[in-house]
């Protein structure tokens, strides 16, 4: 006997949520299986609360020279090309991805590109005693060139045993990000690409794009200001809301990046975006 994969339902039995998922599936030409999401633990708007699996999330990192943020590509010597991916934020998201899967299912985190390999000590946290799960479940891949990097990202995203892929996404073009997006849709992983800030203006198939800026810290905890630059229809309701900045800080003991409890000095108005800090979240003023 041949079974039918889909069963017709009476119109009255479809809930609004199911209807939204069906429309979303038609819009994005993918299976009606709802994509699971990873809670970020950051609060704020719904967009910042969760990151969907099966789509690309781009994280634009930190550079040594702030004037390069708005440049198409920094000029000058090799030093100007140096940038740092927001590794602590990405590590936090890898932990969250690992926490939200069943123990027997996909449970590996693949770090592709030597630039996004964090110091292994950061992968150990103190959660009722030392927790080394992320360290033990991490695979580090060092492709020699961009083609190898793209191939490794594609392969890792399609693997059903991988829960998160953190990759160096620098110098990827629009067509290449489309390939990565297709691979991400095939799998169920959380796809995180770290990119340099001068690639912000480049086209990409990423669903969300986040910009990370350093923020002053009055104590020993490094702080960052994250800005959602783009959110492409994953959560339509949230996308219509005003996007916001959040100020996050690194909690070393817990191994988490969490919203800062204390809002500190304003950034320099000359270099800051037209946003205003208010109760841990920042709203646009102009």
């Amino acid at each position, binding site marked *: 006997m041949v079974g039918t994969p889909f069963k017709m339902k009476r119109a009255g039995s479809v809930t609004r949520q199911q209807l939204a998922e069906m429309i979303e599936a038609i819009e994005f030409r993918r299976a009606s299986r709802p994509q699971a999401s990873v809670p970020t633990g950051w609060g704020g708007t719904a967009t910042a609360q969760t990151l969907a699996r099966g789509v690309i999330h781009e994280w634009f*990192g*930190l550079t*040594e020279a*702030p004037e390069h943020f708005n440049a198409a590509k920094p000029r000058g010597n090799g*030093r100007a090309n*140096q940038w*740092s*991916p*927001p*590794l*602590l934020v990405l*590590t936090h998201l890898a932990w969250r991805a690992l926490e939200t899967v069943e*123990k*027997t*299912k*996909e*449970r*590996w985190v*693949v770090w592709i590109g030597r630039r996004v390999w*964090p*110091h*292994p*000590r*950061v992968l*150990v*946290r*103190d959660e009722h005693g*030392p*927790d*080394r799960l992320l*360290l*033990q479940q*991490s*695979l*580090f*891949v*060092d*492709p*020699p060139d961009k083609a*190898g990097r793209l*191939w*490794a990202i594609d*392969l*890792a995203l399609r*693997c*059903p*045993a*991988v829960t998160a892929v953190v990759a160096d996404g620098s110098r990827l073009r629009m067509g290449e990000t489309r390939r990565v997006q297709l691979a991400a849709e095939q799998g169920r992983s959380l796809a995180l690409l770290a990119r340099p800030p001068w690639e912000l203006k480049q086209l990409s198939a990423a669903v969300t794009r986040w910009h990370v800026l*350093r*923020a*002053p*810290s*009055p104590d*020993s905890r*490094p*702080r960052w200001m994250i800005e959602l630059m783009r959110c492409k229809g994953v959560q339509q309701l949230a996308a219509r809301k005003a996007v916001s900045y959040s100020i996050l800080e*690194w909690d*070393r*003991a817990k*191994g988490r990046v969490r919203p800062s409890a204390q809002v500190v000095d304003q950034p320099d108005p000359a270099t800051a975006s037209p946003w205003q800090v208010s109760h841990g979240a920042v709203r646009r003023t102009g």
Partner: protein
Amino acid sequence: MVLVKIAAARQIVARCCERSAAAGVREGMTLTHARAVLVGTPLRVHPYDPLGDEAALKALARWALRCAPLVAPDPPDGLLMDVSGCRPLYGNEQRLVNTFADRIGRLGFRARVACASTFGCAWAVARFSDQERSVIAHGQEHQALTPLPIEALRIDEDTAAALLEVGIERIGHLFALPRRELVARFGSHLLLRMDQATGETIEVIQPQHPVEPPSVQRVFDGPVTQLEAVMRTVRELTEDLAGKLQRLESGVRRLDIVFDRLDVAALRVLITLSRPSRDVKHLWSLLKPKVETIQMGFGIERIALTATVVGRLRHEQIEQADGQWRSSEPDDAPADRAFGELIDTLAQRLGPHRTVCVHPVESHLPERSFRQHSVMQTQRPQGDAKQITASDRPSILLERPEPIEVMAITPQGPPSWLRWRGEEHRIVTAIGPERIGNVWWSPDVSPTCHSQRDYFKVQDGASRWLWVYREREAGRWFAHGEWA
């Protein structure tokens, strides 16, 4: 070098090298005592691994099958070989002994070899004779054994102590005593060992049986120059090999493919897998890129696939429970299999050393506290992950500390200004110092690691957190990491 084991919360020397033994180190001694004996001499200490030693001895016994038809491991450190019928191959026993000792010496072992008509006599002479290579002619066993100590009879410590107590130190003393009295006072085991050594009683060994690795091959009628035919043949041979492996309930870990070519040397292709597999699709995905690029020369006459290393891969059972058919394999098996295929594919294309895991190393130095190892290694490096706790370390650790220029208000204090990579940084927050001591006890560490370091976590005016340190002796400053 010494191997230590833990007994009653103390580190006890289980084995030691010849140099340590010559300096006075003995088995059963505490490690502290051994260090005191070897004061001034660098000492390497490794954990004693009896199971690993036993496995290595079995592997050596399998290797020795190329010299003798029957070889049995004799734990903890010996091999018993039955060389009956091998004399015509070597000419005489002395040449056989020399050949074997030279061959095993090339593997890095220093062996004492003796050849006799009984295992007991050969065991005794190999261990207690003055010569490293000995041959005892048939009928000369009594003469060879007479001057040797009684421990050469493979008797237990209590019996040896009882014999020494009554002044019997040599085997020759035992030969002079009446057998009936020996049984009455020291038991029948002593007499059995004497008879085994002299050949009065037959001794049976449990030899290692050679295992032929699963292999399939195809011989062509003539040299084949078409790549499509070669690829199709390799694919079919892979399916045949998978069938053989299924009957053996095993999977391949290392696959060796030999292409015999006309008039030129054979071509060998090797693939290694991270875990056993007999999945044809997966094996072919690894083989195909390599087969596509082979140089066929004037044509290929024969293709052979051999699973040189195999591992146990259990059959999957289908069982019925609560009216539902389900697989008996564990729930995490599909995920494990998928991940194994992922790392096999990554390692085949990028190379095994570009696909790594990280394991902790016992070191306070940040750059030496972790080591990368290839995921294709069959044995994971030893490392105590329990020693690794959460601590305030930067997310980016530079491969090598980079020198920086620093201005500090006090000589021992934190920097107030620094220049790194040509850029100036005004320091607004500094936390520290955290002192990390030198590793004076390790001979392997470079001289730069022999200095104490005072680490500071500093924040510059652009809110960038850096990890810098000052060498206490030289006073030089370095940048070592960043919280990003």
